[in-house]
């Protein structure tokens, strides 16, 4: 995995002390975050077992109660906790949204084997991966607009954007992209925009098995490719012109 992923991990929030007792990570305060990706060792789980139990139970109540405190309280009750125990989640209903995003991203990483680098196949792989991730929203899609509202709340926005960035990074990694030039950034930003718009489109999609979302996604990806090749073309052209200019000036005796 590319070095930028590592940097991103570095910039993100250090793991909570909750996990410092896990076998993998020695308790070392702030410096506990792992700054690299290991194929041999799993990352420590992002949620403690208690959080995991309450939030997964809460998520199962989302189709009926939506992303609300009610769902969270029901989750706590189902996990054998008290109503007041929802104080474990100061972010309230947003915790359920975040839980869904994180667990689904990790599930994607766990279930899909990273593709080998093959530039021809990358667009198809990306398409498949985005669809796979979108289909994970199926069960709660009728409530997803509530989640989007919570995600767009100004105080939650940094968390939401980071999660989106992590997801697009995950998708590109799994699709076999190994670019490390400035394309790394544009790829991820572009993919994040496409994913977010497809997700929004899906909330109003009533077609059978979300066919319209699939078509929408295919169109956006195609446009993305076009923009990419256009920008790439302009870049190449500008490079050649600049080279020519330098050569021309040198032939006139300018010391460049």
């Amino acid at each position, binding site marked *: 995995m590319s070095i930028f992923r590592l940097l991103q991990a570095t910039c993100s929030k250090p793991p909570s*002390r909750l996990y410092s007792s896990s076998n993998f990570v020695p308790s070392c305060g702030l410096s506990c975050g792992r700054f690299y990706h290991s194929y041999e060792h799993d990352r420590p789980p992002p949620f403690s077992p208690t959080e995991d139990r309450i939030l997964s139970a809460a998520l199962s109540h989302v189709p009926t109660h939506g992303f609300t405190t009610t769902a969270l309280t029901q989750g706590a*009750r189902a996990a054998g906790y008290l*109503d*007041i125990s929802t104080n474990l*989640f100061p972010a309230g209903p947003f*915790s359920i949204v975040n839980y869904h995003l994180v667990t689904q991203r990790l599930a994607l990483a766990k279930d899909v084997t990273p593709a080998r680098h093959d530039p021809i196949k990358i667009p198809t792989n990306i398409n498949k991966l985005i669809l796979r991730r979108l289909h994970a929203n199926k069960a709660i899609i009728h409530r997803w607009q509530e989640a989007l509202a919570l995600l767009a709340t100004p105080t939650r926005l940094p968390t939401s954007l980071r999660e989106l960035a992590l997801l697009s990074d995950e998708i590109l990694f799994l699709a076999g992209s190994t670019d490390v030039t400035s394309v790394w950034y544009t790829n991820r930003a572009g993919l994040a925009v496409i994913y977010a718009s497809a997700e929004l489109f899906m909330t109003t999609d009533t077609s059978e098995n979300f066919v319209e979302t699939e078509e929408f996604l295919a169109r956006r990806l195609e446009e993305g490719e076009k923009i990419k090749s256009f920008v790439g073309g302009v870049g190449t052209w500008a490079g050649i012109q600049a080279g020519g200019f330098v050569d021309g000036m040198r032939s006139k005796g300018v010391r460049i």
Partner: protein
Amino acid sequence: MSFPTPWRTSARLTRRLLAIKQPYRCLSCSLRLAREEARQDAKTTHFGFESVPAAEKQSRVGAVFSSVASSYDTMNDLMSLYTHRLWKDHFVRSLNPGIHTSLFPSPNQPTSQTILDIAGGTGDIAFRLLSHATTVNNDHSSRVIVSDINPAMLAEGKKRSLQTEWASSERLSWVEANAEDLHMIDSNSIDLYTVAFGIRNFTDKMAALREAYRVLKPGGVFACLEFSKVHNPILNGAYKRWSFGAIPLIGQLVAGDRESYQYLVESIERFPSQREFAGMVEEAGFLLPGGMEEEGGWEDLMGGIAAVHRGIKPTEG
């Protein structure tokens, strides 16, 4: 082979003599000092910036609060520029006490909560807890037990409760108790344990935390609102100026008691930082809220002047 030459013998003798003259080498100084300090700590605790015998702290804190009880509210308003009311409101609202029975009644669920408000003599938090449970969650049965070590503060609270709707209600009761020894409260009987601006004055904070863990039901919540450390250096400078310059002066002018308020600001200064205190809460066995946007385990109010710490007693283990 070495022979005991006069030179060697004398060298050995000198070394021995020197060893007797110097009972320890300089290298071990720090170790010795550390030991002495530890021995001292066992007997004394801090009272503001002073070190006092642990047995004495309780009575001295008692004296402070007996003397400030009557002017407690006015002083709080003046010292915190009325913000303590905002903090307390936020504290109670974020805890969301009470059970919202009307929304989803289910047969096996308890319909009321028992809340223990420690060091809540004047009832500040207790009245807020009750009114939140009643008006927000439509819960008319949850009870609050107010506990304070100081009878003067409790008397002040009882007096103030006469002006509220809870005056003769069964939902409010008063207990005079030391938070380090709550033998009159059953184990696993409390849903929510709150302590606002109190834990700083406890002689043994760890003992109080362990006692909190004992009385709480599994899944119960420990919540603490306390002055803490300000992170922003500029704000910190202004805050320290205010607390060490203005607060004892206000105390002298309004309450006629400078020493008590000097103790107050010193005890704030001596209270552990957010991180340390969160560590103590965790050590007592509580689960800390992971918090995605917070620093995990606590919430800073106004840049860290005050902080809310929360811990949940796990159901297993």
